[in-house]
């Protein structure tokens, strides 16, 4: 094939070693920008917003691809949380009989498991958001926060499915829809902000130090047992084996706060007496701190992701 354009630039090669100020001036004169520079925070947020379609569809595509090889396909999205709930019920409800002192133990347990699973999976996904998508990060230009945000959105979608299953189970156990159920919406929204913020932090940490993802299962397991997912922190206080400060600290840990709020919203026998003081302020505070802090901290290393 022959060239269809006259080569426009054969005309003017340079004598070697021109002063470089000329190159800089040339670039400035034509409005060129430095390649790969980190945009300021407001511009970064705008870029992210422009990528919202990608963020949404990357999550959906991941979810579809995840189950596409399984015989039961997308049904697993619903079966996974239900099987989890069954396992926890068998161990903690039947074998260990933790339900002494906790009325409505099954709704209590399932709410805890589903809400915890959301945070745990979001954080696990966060550690792999950059390190598990290096090919994408190295090949295409986009605001890197798209990846942890997209994966968090994916977990939120999973949570909605779990909650749909939970509602059915609640109805079976004789909990009836009440206006208080609506309180679950702000509680879960705040929890989503909190989890996304922490996953942004983990994404940056794991991008630099991949070993973080090896450590995560242990951190998450400790956190789960400390957050009263399968047992009631309140009943720990009643037994009096620990000083009040320890119990209060356990109750104020963000995961326990969000789990308690969702239980308070959905389970009738779980009353305000089980909640720590100023619980909504705590929920908002944790969410704002984690999300704003995590987002800015992630953005500060934007140009370093995916580099050797």
């Amino acid at each position, binding site marked *: *094939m*022959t*060239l*269809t*354009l006259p*080569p*426009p*630039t*054969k*005309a*003017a*090669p*340079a*004598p*070697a*070693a*021109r002063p*470089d100020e*000329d*190159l*800089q*001036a*040339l*670039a400035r*004169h*034509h*409005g*060129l*920008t*430095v*390649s*790969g*520079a980190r945009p300021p925070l407001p511009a970064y947020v705008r870029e992210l917003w*422009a*990528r919202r*379609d*990608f963020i949404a*569809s*990357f999550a959906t*595509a*991941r979810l*579809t*691809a995840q189950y*596409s*090889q399984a015989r039961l396909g997308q049904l697993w999205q619903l079966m996974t949380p239900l099987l989890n709930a069954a396992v926890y019920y068998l161990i903690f409800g039947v074998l260990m009989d933790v339900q002494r002192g906790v009325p409505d133990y099954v709704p209590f347990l399932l709410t805890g498991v589903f809400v915890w699973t959301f945070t745990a999976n979001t954080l696990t996904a966060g550690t792999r958001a950059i390190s598990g*998508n290096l*090919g*994408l*990060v*190295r*090949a*295409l*230009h*986009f605001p890197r926060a798209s990846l942890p945000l997209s994966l968090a959105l994916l977990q939120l979608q999973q949570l909605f499915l779990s909650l749909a299953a939970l509602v059915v189970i609640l109805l079976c156990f004789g909990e009836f829809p009440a206006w208080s159920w609506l309180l679950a919406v702000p509680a879960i929204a705040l929890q989503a902000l909190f989890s996304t913020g922490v996953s942004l932090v983990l994404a940056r940490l794991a991008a630099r130090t991949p070993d973080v993802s090896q450590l995560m299962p242990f951190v998450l397991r400790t956190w789960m047992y400390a957050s009263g997912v399968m047992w009631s922190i309140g009943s720990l206080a009643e037994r009096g084996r620990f000083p009040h400060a320890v119990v209060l600290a356990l109750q104020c840990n963000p995961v326990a706060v969000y789990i308690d709020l969702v239980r308070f919203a959905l389970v009738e026998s779980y009353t305000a007496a089980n909640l720590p003081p100023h619980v909504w302020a705590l929920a908002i505070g944790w969410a704002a701190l984690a999300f704003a802090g995590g987002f800015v901290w992630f953005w500060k290393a934007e*140009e*370093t992701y*995916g*580099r*050797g």
Partner: protein
Amino acid sequence: MADPDETTTAAPNAPATEAAGPTTAPTDPAPPTAPLPAPTVVADRVHIAYTVPDGLGGNRRVHAVKGVCFVARRGEAIGLIGSNGSGKSTLLKAIAGLQPVESGTIHTQGRPALLGVDAALMGDLSGERNVILGGLAMGMTWSEITARYDDIVAFSGLEEGLDEDLDDHPAAGPATPPADPAARRRGGLSPHPSAAPGSPLSRPLRTYSSGMSARLRFAISATARSHDVLLIDEALATGDARFRRRSRRRIDELRAAAGTVFLVAHAHAAIRETCDRALWLEAGTLRMDGPADEVVAAYEEFTRTGATPPSR
């Protein structure tokens, strides 16, 4: 016009160790007679180094690009040649803003697009969904990708085979968008694409042959959006001969639309046919910068005999 001249070679004040390699002044030291097209990429004494973990907790420093200077202008197709590991792909990534420079700067017009959409695609999803996903990953919005979906599919030729008329006239001008005939035949563009049941586009991407998926990938990235600067790494090596011709025509269109195309390819024929200018990188330094034919010839001479290009 106060523009400096088009090319310079290795940096005058690069660190002494890096400046050791032989460098050559470009050809034709004639002063510009007409205003040059506007620059799209200005590389000023670019050094690129990265660290590679050696697996024992230590790191090894690789100095991949050493003091490269050049100016690329609108309408140019520039080939990058050189031995394996000479820094071609690294330089391409740096132009795309995906690899930080150690020192020096790369200025670009707009945001150069590296043709690297493969990474965004998922083998378990259908070709159809991958077109959408790839387009979104390239920075399009939902409405943009649905509007261009048919163009992309038609360009890939996966739905109905490549157009015979294109094959018969490989040297036809770049003016006709290759997508048009196919899009017309489909009769009306559906706003929400849905591949016919028998079409390869409804099958998972992992079932495609490597040639088919290469076609789809090139179609997504090259048709997706008009870029000021398009960077292509070895893309033309895949696909069958007919698709390669079509890809070349697409590159010509991009250049005609006043863009700049960079191409890394090991096949020197592809560089000769597609590019009017070539940069030869060897061990990270810019050995030669000039018309593609001359640079490729000098490089081939070098690989055969080890001779450095003649100084002028």
